[in-house]
């Protein structure tokens, strides 16, 4: 069943060149979909459209079978509860003036959701592998990886159906990146996720479907395994070929499926 459906979407800033041009794809409920593209591919603009921060000039976006009504406050309140996001820079995405408690519970407060907000915040912190005692601290007391966990806690605290992640591990060190990718894998068993990233390796580790974007257009879309094994388009092929690989191990390390 389709949760999110993007139909012939086009977008341009001002009178400029199209940032997105006739973009169509669907996100099945429960799936992990990766939107892959380099700078200028339009992936960030697409994410803003999916978050209802901008409206497409052509085409439409359907969520759970209904078109996105970004101008209707009651609709958007419901949409915000059901769709959350994690951003790239954990140093910019947490308000430095607020304690973690206030940060994590912001969706609950702003959307006036019922329930014991403090308990929900503690649960969300446990879900992302953080000690709930961290709720009483300020963001600057945490490392990048810990901050990203807090940002993920905020995204899942209202139990959304869809989480959009915008380059959510790109700013992290390699060792931290692996741990946050693992965390996303855990979380993704409970909800639908869309990962926007330029990093093919990360997306491949997380997503079962890929959408490859280049200069505002979809180049190729399909199951991750098929695109990695048998890319159809020259752009996808050059993208995959450009990714630096580790030198072949003399003796195979660990598991490779």
């Amino acid at each position, binding site marked *: 069943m389709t949760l999110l459906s993007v139909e012939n979407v086009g977008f341009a800033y001002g009178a400029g060149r199209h940032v997105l041009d006739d973009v169509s794809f669907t996100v099945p409920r429960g799936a992990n979909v990766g939107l892959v593209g380099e700078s200028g591919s339009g992936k960030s603009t697409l994410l803003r459209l999916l978050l209802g921060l901008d409206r497409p000039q052509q085409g439409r976006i359907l969520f759970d079978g209904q078109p996105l009504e970004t101008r209707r406050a009651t609709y958007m309140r419901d949409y915000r509860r059901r769709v959350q996001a994690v951003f790239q820079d954990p140093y910019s995405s947490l308000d*430095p003036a607020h304690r973690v408690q206030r940060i994590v519970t912001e969706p609950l407060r702003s959307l006036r959701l019922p329930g014991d907000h403090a308990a929900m915040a503690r649960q969300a912190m446990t879900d992302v592998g*953080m000690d709930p005692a961290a709720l*009483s601290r300020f963001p600057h007391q945490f490392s990048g990886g810990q901050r990203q966990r807090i940002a993920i806690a905020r995204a899942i605290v209202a139990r959304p159906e869809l989480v959009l992640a915008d380059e959510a591990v790109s700013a*992290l060190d390699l060792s931290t990146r692996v741990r946050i990718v693992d965390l996303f894998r855990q979380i993704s068993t409970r909800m639908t996720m869309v990962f926007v990233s330029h990093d093919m390796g990360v997306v491949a580790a997380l997503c079962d479907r890929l959408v490859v974007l280049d200069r505002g257009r979809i180049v190729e879309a399909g199951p991750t395994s098929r695109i990695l094994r048998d890319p159809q388009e020259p752009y996808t092929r050059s993208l995959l070929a450009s990714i630096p690989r580790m030198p072949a191990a003399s003796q195979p390390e660990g598991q490779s499926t």
Partner: protein
Amino acid sequence: MTDRPDAPRPDAPWPDAHRNDPRAEAHDGPHVSAPAEGPRSAEPTETSEIPAAPPSPRRRSRPAAVHWLGYALVAVILLTGLLSLVWTPYALSDMAGSRLEPPSLRHWAGTDQLGRDLFTQLMIGARIALIVGTGAVAIGAAIGIVAGVLAAFATRFLDDALAAVFDILIAFPTLLIAMLVVAARESASLGTAILALGIGLSPIVGRVTRILTKRVLAKDYITAARISGTGWPMVVADHVLPNIAPFLGVNLALQFGLAVMAEASLSYLGLGAPPPNASWGRMLQEAQGTVYSAPWAAVLPGLALFALVIGVNLTADGLRDRFDPAGREG
């Protein structure tokens, strides 16, 4: 921005290393747990991912002693101003001594050319300076913050227009604007002077607010707030104002100093608080003719003015360091 992870875990192998780089991962769990063992391998280390000691949310950019000097100066002037409401050595218009007496036990700060007690005038002047400074900054901040935040949120055209208005008004000397307001009100009074100075300061506050707000609006936590369903009014109240406050507060303290000095200038021109109010500015004006024969009559109000301006600025610095959780520096 200098927000970086604080308080290294005491058991971290090299607790100092992360100071090198704000993105350090020095305490993001032990690195040695091989991350590739499987998707759940990091599990056992997760709960330890928290700084051990809760560090104080304060960081100081300057020795606290300097701030304490600021607090002390402001406190002394504030208490003096309050005391002047109930007690002064003499009545303001009481010609209690002879002309231009030097400081003595009877007249701690000497007397002016009419024989009035200068210490009495200094005490009342403290009150007037505080009222003028606070009042003018309050009016300037009220107009300036509203206009600045509006400009930051406005569409391109309105933003450009407001920015231009700020710049043009700033190009007008505050004093000139204040003189126009006083002229328009036809008579000089304390209220007019405060209103005039407040209006004169507002474009400076507006411009600073606009820039600070724009900087905050570009942060991801604003987008995150919108995604969380936070409406624009709450975004301003909950995210923008707290984050511009540390910088704006320091700026307003500077404006306070400007206002007090501008009031002195207005008084000097005869446009400030009219008698029977005593203001440090008018004391300076009246001492002008006798500065060589009775230097104390000019030096003492000058020193008082200086102490207040310095005190307010140091206080603002100190309060920022104390209450800004992220310990940002200007």
